């Protein structure tokens, strides 16, 4: 009964636009303090222990890394280099968009920082080369989703922390193949669209001297994913350490390169990281309170019993989860969905005998699709505000990409090796 009250408080606050972390926190803390009259220390300790975690440090560090790689001029160099290779092709800029998103995905961990750093550069390049603004904006929105799927991924770290007992390294490895599938699908779609629409200007080959010079410039950037992913998968670093080493490396490269990295760049990067990661931190803290209450009241177990009694199989269960997440993804941001639902749904998946990593990947990737589905999609909002393209035409132009992403998710549900083969191969 009292649980219904906290549900009510939660929904009432969300409907009137209270930030989700605060709505969850208000519902949870009110229940603990007033309905149960529990020791208030429990509340503070729950919140504190959710934030006091070494793996969680990776989140601010990866966000810093994404901004610093841009400020140290690593990203513009990458884009120019790719342009030299792919500029010859019709639709070259569109391919550059996809490929640079995939390469940069090996560095940054969030879709939002991809749009903020790489996205604008790419949209400028595409429109300058004669691509329609709406198509450029839509393609860039879609490719930014690749960032948090190909390792490293802040979204996966958040999922693993919210659920507990899931290996972040294994999830990272599991994301590689779905991420590449996204990218390949986008390339094929770009091929068809740019050919049909005769988009873009075909560029001449660069001189070999220019190309050589640009290749030298881009090597420091291409080394980054090797350091990060290589370090994590070989067991040299933990995820957090790889992010910190990546930040230090980028700062050193930035200090050595010609327009030098300035203090202001470091200040901006840390401040931006503080704001973005504090939002995730508040959600994790409030989510820890709520998920403790749900476990304490056996809600998770009751829901599991109910679902198991409905005798849908593991695949049926996952498809239901995918549909629910896609619908919620239209209305809410990915991180709050993960924090509110993952601790509830992941243990049920376990009872169905679904692998932690497999379910986690399907969950995270489905939530990420929500970033580009209207009416609420943070990536759509950001792209729209950068480019001035209205939300409606942008949403329509993104739709084909959303269809492909959904197909990949369904393939992942039916073919677990798509996610599980690689982590098994490298022994995670």
């Amino acid at each position, binding site marked *: 009964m009292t649980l219904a009250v906290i549900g009510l408080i939660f929904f009432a606050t969300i*409907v*009137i*636009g*209270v*930030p*989700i972390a*605060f709505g969850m*926190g*208000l519902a949870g*803390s*009110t229940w603990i*303090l007033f309905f149960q009259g529990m020791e*208030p*220390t429990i*509340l*503070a*300790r729950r919140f*504190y222990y959710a*934030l*006091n*975690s*070494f793996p*969680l*440090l990776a989140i*601010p*560090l990866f966000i*810093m890394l994404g901004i610093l790689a*841009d400020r140290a001029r690593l*990203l*513009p160099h990458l884009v120019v280099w790719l*342009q030299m290779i792919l500029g010859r092709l019709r639709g070259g800029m569109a391919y550059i968009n996809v490929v640079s998103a995939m390469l940069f995905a090996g560095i940054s961990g969030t879709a939002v920082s991809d*749009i*903020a*750093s790489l996205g*604008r550069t790419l949209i400028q*390049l595409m429109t300058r080369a004669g691509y329609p603004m709406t198509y450029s904006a839509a393609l860039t929105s879609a490719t930014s989703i690749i960032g948090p799927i190909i390792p490293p991924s802040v979204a996966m770290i958040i999922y693993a922390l919210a659920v507990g007992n899931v290996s972040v390294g294994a999830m990272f490895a599991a994301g590689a193949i779905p991420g590449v599938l996204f990218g390949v699908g986008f390339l094929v779609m770009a091929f068809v669209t740019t050919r049909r629409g005769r988009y873009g200007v075909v560029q*001449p080959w*660069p*001189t070999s001297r220019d190309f050589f010079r640009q290749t030298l410039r881009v090597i420091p950037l291409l080394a980054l994913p090797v350091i990060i992913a290589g370090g994590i998968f070989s067991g*040299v670093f933990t995820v957090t*350490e790889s992010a*910190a*080493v990546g*930040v*230090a490396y980028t700062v050193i490269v930035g200090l050595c390169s010609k327009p030098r990295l300035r203090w202001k760049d470091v200040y*901006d990067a*840390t*401040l931006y990281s*503080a*704001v973005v*990661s*504090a*939002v995730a*931190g*508040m959600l994790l803290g409030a989510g820890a309170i709520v998920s403790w209450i749900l476990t304490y009241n056996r809600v998770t177990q009751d829901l599991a019993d109910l679902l198991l009694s409905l005798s849908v199989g593991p695949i049926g269960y996952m498809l239901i989860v995918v549909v629910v997440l896609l619908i919620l993804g239209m*209305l*809410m941001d990915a991180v709050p969905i993960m924090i509110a639902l993952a601790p509830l749904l992941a243990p049920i998946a376990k009872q169905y005998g679904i692998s932690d990593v497999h379910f986690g990947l399907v969950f995270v990737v489905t939530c990420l699709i929500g970033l580009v589905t209207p009416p*609420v999609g*943070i990536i759509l909002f*950001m792209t729209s505000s950068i480019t001035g393209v209205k939300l409606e035409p942008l949403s329509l132009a993104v739709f084909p990409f959303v269809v492909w992403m959904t197909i990949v998710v369904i393939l992942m549900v039916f073919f677990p090796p798509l996610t599980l083969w690689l982590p098994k191969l490298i022994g995670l």
Partner: protein
Amino acid sequence: MSTSDSRVSAAVVPPVELEEADAGGRRRLGEQWARLPLAWRRADAGLVAATQWTLCLVGVLFAAMITLEVVSRYVFSFSIYFVNAAARLLLVWFFMLGAGIALRHGAHVGFELLTAALPPRARRVVELVALVAVAVFCIEMIYAGLHAMGPAWAQSEPGLGISLGWPVLAIPVGFAFLLYHAMVMMWLRLRADAA
């Protein structure tokens, strides 16, 4: 040669200024200050600047500490044992201080579809109620945080050999700042009504 040079220079897009991406946050702070009374504006700008510099320092500090620990471990085969605990302590403060700034930047994600559809007057009332809900949560957490301080001071943080009170203190302090920032937003909301 000349053709390829011009093409390359045209293609070198300057790095995207963060102001562009982050314009919402900074513009928002500017608008907020423009509407505060002068003395308050100065004090508030000082508080925000101090918080932001602290955040920057904390961020640089934990990045540097973890990197040094890795280097020391592999190059000198010497693990600096307190880095893990110290970085976690800094992280809790980083999150708690960052949360207040994020509130002022309007960065905390919420569900704004329904409020956006309301007529302006009703919308302002609903927004005010939402801020009250934020404030109530902050007060509950300050209360719980202060309660937790007693036992926390008595306990020791095993990795650092200092009292557990220092990291736990971030909870009541951070929520107190959040409460202050929520009250600034409420005041601005009320003033907008009066205007």
